[in-house]
């Protein structure tokens, strides 16, 4: 049995040990902010190198590595060589948390870059914020990421909710004689896709385009045929598909064609932006007229982007149109962090977070980048891109209409299978 004094001593020692642990945990980020001369700066990244998002994960990996090579060629960050510590999360929102905890507490990385997809970015950013680390990312633009009100997360890409606005505005602005009369909205229940469709639906409904269907399907669905058949049965003139990857878009397109259905307008929130991977899956002829919203494409006029695309093609081959937008988003993450490190003259994550929240405008391959109080980049312009022709090499900007870089939209989309 404890005596009173022994009990207090035990409680005191316990409290001291607990406090020490908390202090160690909360200051472990700060301990990595100073680097010995000549020591490399370690950047920890969890990417989906297998699983559902593996295509995007690999593209992000290429973008991060391309940036690291460029930085190291020009002397590194503040004279420190950059080394990337990339681990795979197998597209799992659970594994991504474990990975960042390990990267920070065991691998002692100095900085962290974001994973792929909003689904993984939110838990990753929450985990990283506990250590006081900044998380600059390029693929976590869903409202759910920013609604968490984390102070440490910064998305270099376009916030997703308004991605379809230029597209919906264009459809709505067509002369009444040409304007489609019916639309179907079908989406995966993913935080990236789901917020985009109601915004487009609202704009198009206001222009008198009747909603003939609105469906949400679970992200884990593997057989899309019955869902696509249901869409085809409603015979809408516009199909807006909320998809995160190529297989989903490819499955819908195949099922539509097999049903003898070909909408006048077809747009998917992601998938067609995956360059040659998309073309290989759906076939070049079927891609003609397919649209996708994004904030970047391989033929962008931005000089930084042109340089990066040239380097990418030199290393991996292909054409500018075939370069995945993920590559540019990853590269831009590196550019943002590099500018923050140079401005704050160190690797102190708290200073980097303050700097990025200061309203400073940064230059990246994506264009001008500036963060609001939530870490969103609302100053980025939303574009719509379209595959044109049957060679699978012409991926062009078509929206906003009137933009000097936008070309004429192929409308109506050529009929599939003809």
């Amino acid at each position, binding site marked *: 049995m404890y005596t009173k004094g022994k009990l207090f001593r035990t409680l005191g020692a316990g409290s001291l040990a607990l406090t020490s642990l908390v202090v160690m945990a909360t200051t472990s980020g700060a301990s990595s902010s100073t680097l010995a001369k000549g020591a490399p700066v370690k950047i920890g990244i969890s990417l989906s190198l297998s699983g559902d998002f593996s295509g995007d994960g690999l593209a992000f990996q290429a973008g991060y590595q391309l940036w690291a090579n460029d930085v190291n060629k020009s002397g590194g960050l503040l004279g420190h060589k950059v080394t990337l510590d990339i681990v795979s999360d197998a597209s799992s929102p659970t594994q991504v948390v474990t990975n960042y905890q390990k990267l920070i507490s065991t691998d002692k990385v100095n900085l962290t870059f974001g994973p792929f997809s909003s689904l993984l970015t939110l838990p990753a950013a929450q985990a990283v914020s506990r250590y006081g680390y900044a998380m600059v990312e390029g693929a976590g633009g869903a409202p759910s990421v920013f609604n968490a009100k984390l102070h440490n997360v910064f998305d270099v890409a376009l916030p997703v909710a308004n991605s379809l606005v230029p597209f919906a505005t264009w459809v709505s602005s067509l002369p009444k004689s040409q304007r489609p009369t019916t639309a179907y909205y079908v989406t995966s229940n993913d935080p990236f896709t789901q917020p985009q469709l109601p915004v487009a639906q609202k704009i198009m409904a206001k222009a008198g385009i009747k909603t003939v269907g609105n469906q949400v399907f679970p992200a884990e*669905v593997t057989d899309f045929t*019955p869902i696509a058949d249901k869409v085809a*049965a409603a015979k809408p003139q516009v199909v807006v598909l909320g998809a995160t990857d*190529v297989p989903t878009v490819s499955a819908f397109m195949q099922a539509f064609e*097999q*049903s003898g259905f070909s909408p006048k307008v077809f747009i998917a929130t992601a998938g067609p932006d995956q360059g040659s991977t998309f073309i290989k*899956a759906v*076939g070049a002829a079927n891609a003609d007229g397919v649209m996708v919203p994004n904030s970047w494409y391989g033929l962008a006029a931005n000089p930084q982007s042109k340089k990066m695309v040239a380097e990418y093609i030199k290393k991996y081959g292909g054409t500018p149109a075939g370069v995945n937008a993920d590559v540019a988003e990853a590269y831009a993450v590196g550019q943002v962090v590099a500018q923050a490190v140079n401005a704050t003259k160190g690797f102190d994550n708290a200073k980097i977070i303050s700097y990025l929240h200061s309203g400073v405008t940064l230059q990246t391959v994506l264009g001008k980048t500036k963060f609001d109080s939530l870490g969103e980049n609302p100053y980025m312009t939303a574009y719509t891109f379209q595959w044109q022709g049957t060679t699978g090499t012409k991926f062009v900007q078509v929206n906003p209409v009137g933009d000097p870089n936008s070309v004429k939209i192929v409308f109506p989309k050529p009929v599939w299978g003809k």
Partner: protein
Amino acid sequence: MNFTAFVDAAKDGILTGSLYALMATGLTLIFGVMDIINVAQGILVILGAYLSYALSVHLGIDLFVGLAITIPTLFVVGIVIEKAFLGRLKGPEKTAMSILVTFAVALLIEGSLNMIFSVNPVQLHAWYVNRSFSVGGIHFAYIYVAGFVLAVVMLSALYYMLYRTRFGVSVRASLADQASAALVGIDVRRVSTICFGIGVAVTAAGGMIYGATTTFNANTSYDLISRLLTIIVLGGMGSLGGAMLGGVLLVFVGNIVGVIAGPIWSTMAYYVLLVIVLLVRPQGLFGKQSARVA
């Protein structure tokens, strides 16, 4: 509810379900004869799809003609796996150990496929893959109809082999009692090896149809194996007829519920059915205690 959508869902259930049945056939045959749960079946289906892809893209061989190469190739792959890994498993823990061993084999194949083909998803293309014909306003995709016919032909061939051939007698005897089968001169070890080869060989056909209807990479196997295992548990482990019915039920029930209540409920509906069936009949719809190959 739109009647056309309902009929489409029912049609898809039967056609796509038969495709899953074709893929699950090998799994159930291997369990029925060898008491081995082959969790590598999913990746073997994908291997079959990649073999068809390689023949089609690099040599221009038609997907169906390519089966003449991929089926024997996977038969040999099956024999090698059985000889190298599974033949060594013995004793009462054999079934449990087989899960671990075949999972290791699956990881080995998955890693190899990722290295050879990368993780970028691909799909099989041929002129008939996206085409369809219409009967009474209902569209039937050639590839799904072909998959259905292939499933029926291959299942019939397996039945014929089991019940109309000398080898089939050996298989059924081995299944009933391995010691007695050995006493009457049946080489039980050889029968098991050949059965495993056949179980893997049929995945070549399933893989080709799957690859033509779905964009895939090596990781797709995880979605597949969970579905295939569910099918054979519902149909009754070891039963070929059960695999067919389980496959069709899996997709049919999901599709109908998807049309009526929305796709968000379709997966759950199937698992509710599975739970009900297992409560009433724990061995599955066609599962038997004494002789599992129905």
